[in-house]
């Protein structure tokens, strides 16, 4: 229990978290479905959670795990609001393509 945890192990976890974050960003930029774009933001939240817990474990500090609780909170709030907005917009135009809603920016 709580054995030593070296820099190489920490680096492996951080690289996994970094690759996951990059995959989430690529997915967010590439996909053209509003709901899948929001799923990709959840992927980025997961990456942040893994990085927090790994660094917290390296320093034997529980604050990293507490941050994951707040990440979960923000992710749940974001999912509720974003999905309510998506349902609202889908009712107006019957499409999930963000390009359809281009005039919102004007």
């Amino acid at each position: 229990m709580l054995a030593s945890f070296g820099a190489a192990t920490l680096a492996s976890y951080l690289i996994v978290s970094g690759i996951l974050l990059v995959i989430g960003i690529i997915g967010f930029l590439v996909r053209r479905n509003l709901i899948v774009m929001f799923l990709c933001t959840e992927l980025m939240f997961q990456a942040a959670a893994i990085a927090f817990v790994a660094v917290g474990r390296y320093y034997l500090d529980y604050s990293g795990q507490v941050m994951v609780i707040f990440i979960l909170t923000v992710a749940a709030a974001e999912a509720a609001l974003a999905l309510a907005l998506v349902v609202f917009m889908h009712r107006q135009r019957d499409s999930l393509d963000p390009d359809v809603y281009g005039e919102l920016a004007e």
Partner: protein
Amino acid sequence: MDPVLPYLVCLVLALTIYAAIRPASLSFQVGAIVATVAAAGWLIGIVASILSSLDGDAATPFFIIFSLTLLGAAVRMISHERPIYCALHFVLVVIASAGLLLLLEAEFMAFAIIIVYAGAIIVTYMFVLMLANQSADPNIPDPRTFYDKIPREPAAAVGVGFLLLCIVTGTVLHGTTQLPVQPQETIVWQTLEQLPKQFKRSVLELDDTFAWPPEVNEQGVAIQIENESAFVVSSDGVRLELNQTLLPTNTQAVGWSLINDFPVSLELAGVILLMAMLGAAVLARRAIELGEREKRAALLANEEASS
């Protein structure tokens, strides 16, 4: 230290992700995803082997299994053409990352992530996907919509991702070696001392003749470390060895840290959740247009109900 090879592997990884997200046949996509997972494993191995000159430990087999499952499911998620399957692959991502958290001895967070993500958030996404995808028409052989089939600017997105991945890799390679030295075991035992009632109870359970309170040393710490074993000294000078089973569990320690270190953030999280709930209720409410006659009938019904 060879700084060029990790960046080359980042380039290979970016190219395989590009191959995976382009529209192609199923076998080509699966091959590209396998290549992506292999490149990711290569990158992890290179970085770990560069840094393992500092200390000798290597990744466990479970780490390899969980991390490669995680990355493979993530790539399949952003490349799948049907949103329902994207959500299901995200469940696989969540379960694999819960496995990684278990390896990091964060048991509470691992199960909380499964419950909240796979159990609550993904179910919400599935409901909205099923509401939005009205593709039950059997006359349409291909239910996929055009905007799910054609990715937007895959080359530019992969370029951005490649640059970001290079920055992350460089930071991990040059940053972690400069981190301060890892703390000693005292920090682990401090988590027990921060819970005074549990500290007293567990010490008295070990030895009920122990004269409470224990002596504190010059740093004001009661639990002292000597030759990798922890002990306390009672007020009449009896020395008592502590064993590792007395340490607080992960859930206790996280709860202590949450209440002790972040009380304001905890309150703010509650406010955020309340606001999100109210906002979602307001946004998703369907406005019902009533005519004059229905309004009068509704008013009458209200009055009857209240009288």
